[in-house]
């Protein structure tokens, strides 16, 4: 009897060990690091001073807001581009669904940084695209895409598009096609069928897609540093500089926690706005 009672605990032990080692311990370490003072030469003392947080927010609020804005814009672009793609593959892909998905993912077999850098060549002020348009007189000479906010947003959207497409596709693909027929049968035209049935049923997929794009895009630093120039720095760039260049670990750690807190608050209010039941529910019928 005693052994039977223990069995479930023994079974979850590996999972709990994994979580403890690779999530709780590092988070705890980061938290304690964010509450230290000192520098890399004299060492950091655990003072539990919350001043780091005040410094972080006070100094870098602009980058924080910019990150949330760029991440949000990139996520919206991902929905605008990704939803139709997912819809098309799921409902019109026929026998070639897997082929289309593979085509969608193919570019992502190439390194993330390399792809971003190649956009730099592609979009350079007198490169293949802009140069040609300028030669044809279709664009003014001073026109630039690189080193602007739209370049960063589009770079982010491009790099994280599959994370939006795949969850939406998964939900749409699993949807009973008779649901659409039933809505037509009940006098809904194509637009109403989409608004009242397809879209609400696919909301959990959109929600998952938003989480999987908004979180990494808000924290990204590669796109901002490769495509954004010096005026579009995101909070990811600040964290990277503080850690690797300035060795100011306490500040870097506290910025990390501020960002994490903001993302969590954002996600929970988003889930509440959509209705938790609706986004968490997995529809099987």
């Amino acid at each position: 009897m005693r052994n039977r009672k223990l069995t479930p605990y023994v079974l979850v032990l590996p999972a709990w060990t994994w979580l403890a080692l690779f999530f709780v311990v590092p988070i705890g370490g980061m938290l304690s690091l964010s509450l230290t003072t000192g520098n890399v030469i004299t060492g950091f003392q655990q003072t539990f001073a919350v001043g780091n947080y005040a410094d972080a927010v006070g100094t870098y609020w602009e980058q924080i807001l910019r990150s949330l804005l760029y991440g949000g814009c990139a996520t919206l672009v991902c929905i605008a581009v990704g939803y139709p793609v997912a819809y098309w593959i799921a409902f019109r892909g026929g026998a070639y669904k897997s082929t289309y998905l593979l085509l969608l993912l193919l570019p992502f077999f190439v390194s993330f940084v390399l792809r971003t850098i190649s956009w730099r060549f592609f979009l350079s002020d007198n490169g293949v695209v802009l140069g040609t348009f300028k030669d044809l007189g279709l664009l003014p000479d001073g026109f630039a895409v690189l080193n602007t906010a739209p370049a960063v947003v589009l770079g982010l959207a491009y790099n994280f598009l599959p994370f939006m497409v795949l969850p939406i596709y998964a939900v749409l693909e699993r949807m009973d096609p008779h649901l659409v027929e039933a809505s037509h049968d009940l006098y809904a035209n194509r637009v109403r069928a989409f608004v009242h049935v397809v879209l609400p049923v696919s909301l959990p997929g959109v929600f998952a897609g938003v989480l999987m794009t908004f979180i990494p895009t808000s924290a990204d630093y590669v796109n901002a540093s490769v495509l954004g120039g010096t005026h579009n720095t995101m909070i990811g760039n600040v964290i990277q500089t503080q850690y690797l260049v300035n060795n100011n670990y306490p500040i870097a750690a506290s910025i990390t926690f501020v960002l994490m807190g903001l993302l969590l608050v954002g996600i929970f209010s988003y889930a509440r706005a959509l209705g938790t039941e609706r986004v968490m529910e997995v529809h099987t019928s």
Partner: protein
Amino acid sequence: MASTSTTAPGTPAADTAVPPGPAISLEGVFKSFRSGSGTVHAVDGVDLGVERGEFFSLLGPSGCGKTTTMRMIAGFEEPTAGVVRLNGRDVTGVPANRRDVNMVFQSYALFPHMSVADNVAFGLRRRRVAKDEIRRRVGEMLELVELGHRAGHRPSRLSGGQQQRVALARALVNRPAALLLDEPLGALDLKLRQTMQVELKRIQREVGITFVYVTHDQGEALTMSDRIAVMNNGRVEQLGTPAQVYERPATRFVADFIGTGNLVRGTVRGESGGVWRVEVGDGATALLAELPAALASQGSGAVGSEVDLIVRPEKIRLGTEAPGDGVSAVPGTVAETVYTGAATHYQVDIGGGGTVTVHLQNSSDSALAADRGDRVWLSWPARHSAALPA
């Protein structure tokens, strides 16, 4: 339900003038699909009319074209050729959302993100019916299917039978010219299916709406229908009442598909007093009240023609002694007995390569229990024989 005794929930409003004639008619309808290697003729020339208020079944094996036929009535498929009419109006080419028919899907296709009440209200909302009226009609309809207490629940929280009734309510609440049901009981277990058969029939009587019911289950079709169209290979093999289809199958396929048909080859030997004698097995005589139409026109010229005799297994009596005159009398040897609880099935070898199945109820007064190898006599009255040209 006293409050609704004057107007049942589905009664069409008085101002919707309905022209005379069938509720649904199909005229020379064909449907072919292109598939990888060639063309599939799913529906191959169907003509039929469904009367108003009728419970009409399309019965056939899978792939016989019954579902495609129904989908053309609903507007999900367009016929390759032919005309579909609803209440006399040609609706060929009219999209599903502008046809006055509603469908109950095999998978129910309930909207998972809406409550039961919102599911039922969906069609009324699309038609911009007034809010008060929607609330009233949805309430009435949920009462009719006995789900008033589950109005606020999500479909996923209901049992299969309840979901089925929501699907029914969602379609019926719109008071369509006809309700189309695509194997609606297919996903339910046997007990529930039998309960729902009675339930469906009750609801149909109460609302008085035309039902078109697609099924591959002959028992279901026989139990509920006013008329049945038996389909095979995209064609209607026979159209008639359950009794007609069962007692007088028009084709070999119908005889075989509906119930257990004993098909015995025989030769017409003569006629006396309106009853034809047919020689079957080893010179035994079976009696037949009606020749197949093709032979009946030849009168006595039919003598010597070969026919396939059809007798339903439960119409046959089994005895140890030769029966008297006036009935078919065929001797044979019991080849197999199968006990099924309520009845026992006997396979009787009648010679000449023929085997006849006999079903006997295991009632208290059926004393005979023949064993394998026993010599027995089979007998049945002439009116229980049907015949097809061989």
